[in-house]
C-alpha cells in the first residue's frame, strides 16, 4: 500500500502540471512557500486554503483535500499573485488547471455556482457565437439565497428600464462556419 500511495503522490503534481502550457512559468515544486501570493490575493480570506497552501498541497499529493476545496473556484482571475511570484510560477494558471481537472473528472460539489455558470456560458456561445445575459441567469439564480435572488431581479428590472439589457439573443452572421470551426477543435456533432 505504501508503495502504491507514493506513486500516487508523485502523480497528482505531474497530472496537474500536464494540464498547463509547458512554457507557462516554472514548475510548482520551485515554490519556496514565501506567501506573496496569499498576501496579494484579494479573495484569500474566503478560500478554504490560501494559494500558498494549495501549491504545497498539490506538491504533497493531497489530491482529495485540494479537489474538495473551494479555492480554485474562488480565483477572480486578477493575476496579482502571478505577476508578483518571485519564483515565476503561474499561480492563476494552476487555479485554472485545477478547475479543468475538477470539471473533466466531475469532481466539483453540487452547490458550487462556478461550474454550472461556466457550463451555461459555454453553451450559449457555442449556439450563437455571442453571450446573452438573460439566458445565463437560470444557471445561478436558483442557487441564491432569497435576498440575493430579489436583488438580482431588482437589478435586472432597473437595467431593463435603462435600456441596458438585451431582449433578443444576439447571434453572429456566419454561424454555420463558426460551428464547423468549433468542430475542428472539438469533434462533436457528426462528421468532421
Amino acid at each position: 500500500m505504501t508503495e502504491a500511495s507514493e506513486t500516487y503522490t508523485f502523480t497528482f503534481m505531474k497530472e496537474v502540471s500536464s494540464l498547463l502550457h509547458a512554457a507557462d512559468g516554472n514548475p510548482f515544486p520551485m515554490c519556496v512557500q514565501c506567501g506573496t501570493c496569499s498576501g496579494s490575493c484579494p479573495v484569500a480570506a474566503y478560500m478554504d486554503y490560501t494559494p500558498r497552501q494549495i501549491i504545497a498541497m498539490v506538491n504533497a499529493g493531497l489530491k482529495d483535500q485540494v479537489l474538495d476545496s473551494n479555492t480554485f473556484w474562488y480565483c477572480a482571475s486578477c493575476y496579482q499573485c502571478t505577476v508578483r511570484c518571485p519564483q515565476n510560477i503561474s499561480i492563476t494558471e494552476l487555479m485554472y488547471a485545477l478547475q479543468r481537472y475538477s470539471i473533466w473528472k466531475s469532481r466539483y460539489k453540487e452547490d458550487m455556482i462556478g461550474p454550472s455558470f461556466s457550463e451555461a456560458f459555454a453553451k450559449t456561445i457555442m449556439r450563437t457565437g455571442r453571450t446573452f445575459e438573460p439566458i445565463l441567469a437560470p444557471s445561478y439564480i436558483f442557487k441564491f439565497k432569497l435576498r440575493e435572488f430579489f436583488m438580482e431581479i431588482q437589478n435586472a428590472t432597473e437595467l431593463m428600464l435603462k435600456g441596458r439589457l438585451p431582449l433578443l439573443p444576439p447571434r453572429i452572421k456566419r454561424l454555420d462556419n463558426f460551428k464547423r470551426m468549433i468542430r475542428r477543435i472539438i469533434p462533436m456533432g457528426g462528421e468532421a
Partner: protein
Amino acid sequence: MVKRLLIIDDDPDYVTGIKSILDNAGYAVEVAYDPKAGLQALQSRPYDLLLLDIMMGRGAEGVMIARKLRKDSKLREMPVLIITGMREQIAFLFPGEPIHPGFVKLDELVEKPVEPSLLLEKVNHLLQLAEERKAVPA
C-alpha cells in the same frame, strides 16, 4: 511478433485498467501520461497501434495529436483507437450528439468506460486492417 501499443492518456487510474487488460492479452504496452510525452514517444520509435485520449493538457489535445499523425508520411499509416470520455467532460456536448472520428486513415472511436471484450475486439480489428493495408501497397 508481439504487437507494440502506445497509450496516450492523462488519467493514471484509467490507464492502469486498460493496460492490464492489454498486457494480459499479450501486447507490449507503453504509456505516455501527457500529450507532449506522447508525441515524443511516437517520434522516437515505431508502434503498431495508438490508443488515444482526447481531452488532455489544455483542451482537446488528442485531436491535435491525431492531426499531426495525418501529416506524417510514416505515422499516418498507424491505426488509432480513440478512447474518450469527452461527452461527460465537456459542458456543451449535448447528450445524444455523436462524436466524430476520421482524423487518420484508420481510426475508430469508443467512449469510456469500455468493456474489456470490446476493447480487445477493436484493437484486434484495427491491427488486422492495418496488416491488410500493408499487404496491398497503394
